[in-house]
């Protein structure tokens, strides 16, 4: 009987904290396309990441028009010709942590999280596996991830005159510090 009471007590105490979601709307998302001819990079300071530790669920979204390039012409071509951002305004990743036993969201430390899910951009959805680093310190959760995206996988049209200037595989970096979601 005492064991059941203890379990119930632990559930009541631990339940709300465990179901707490974390999020940021200020994740920095950068991409870099590098070829011997041209280096193209852009930054977006408004990526959203929502983490549900209890479910091991992660959802990320970026607005394509929020990427800022150094050169206006590149930004114009990126939005109008390649990403067609008026038709496809965002890119998303939704996935689950596949190694939950190796990641603790409540204990200070740095963990490697493996995520498996679906990446969606330019109107195309594809399965995607991403590895991220999660740092927990004094209750604050920070995430970092590097991965590569091939424009061809998402039917992003690259005109033949610029194929040598745009990398076949574009490097993407995501950094964010998550706070409790109380909304």
């Amino acid at each position: 009987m005492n064991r059941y009471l203890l379990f119930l007590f632990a559930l009541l105490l631990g339940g709300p904290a465990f179901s707490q979601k974390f999020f940021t709307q200020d994740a920095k998302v950068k991409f870099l396309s590098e070829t011997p001819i041209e280096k193209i990079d852009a930054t977006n300071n408004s990526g959203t990441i929502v983490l549900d530790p209890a479910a091991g669920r992660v959802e990320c979204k970026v607005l394509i028009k929020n990427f800022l390039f150094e050169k206006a012409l590149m930004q114009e071509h990126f939005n109008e010709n390649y990403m067609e951002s008026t038709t496809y305004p965002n890119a998303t990743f939704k996935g689950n942590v596949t190694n939950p036993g190796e990641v603790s969201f409540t204990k200070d430390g740095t963990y490697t999280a493996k995520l498996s899910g679906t990446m969606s951009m330019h109107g195309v959805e594809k399965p995607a596996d991403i590895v991220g680093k999660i740092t927990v310190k004094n209750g604050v959760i920070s995430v970092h991830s590097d991965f590569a995206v091939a424009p061809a996988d998402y039917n992003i049209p690259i005109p033949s005159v610029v194929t040598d200037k745009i990398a076949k595989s574009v490097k993407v970096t995501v950094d964010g510090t998550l706070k409790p979601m109380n909304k």
Partner: protein
Amino acid sequence: MKRILWILLGIAFLAGAYGVYLYNKPHAKMEKARVDEQVEAQALYAAFETDEAAANTRFLGKVVAVTGQVSEVTPTDDGGLKVTLSAGDFGVSCELDPLTQHARTSFTAGETVTFKGNCTGYNLSVQLARCVELK
């Protein structure tokens, strides 16, 4: 014949110079951009929350002047600033234009401000990029 060659060379030079100009063309100055839509923060947020597709058609990629009450000011990693205006659950997020010299970069929660910027869409909050304050 020689004259035609010179004319062709001249045209090629001008075309090349125009190409270089286009390649290095700076971003348009936001402080001089024409406002396409003028709206209150609450109304802008409600438009996206109610029907995102319709709101995208109306606002996405447009220069929007939005007025609202400051709820949060967040510095960005690269020295920039985001000012969130109260609206719905997550508000309207206005990221100050990194290419503009702003008259001020200090905002107080509760004050009413108007920003104009490029509406980039709905991502929990409604987001405006390259914002400048309108007086």
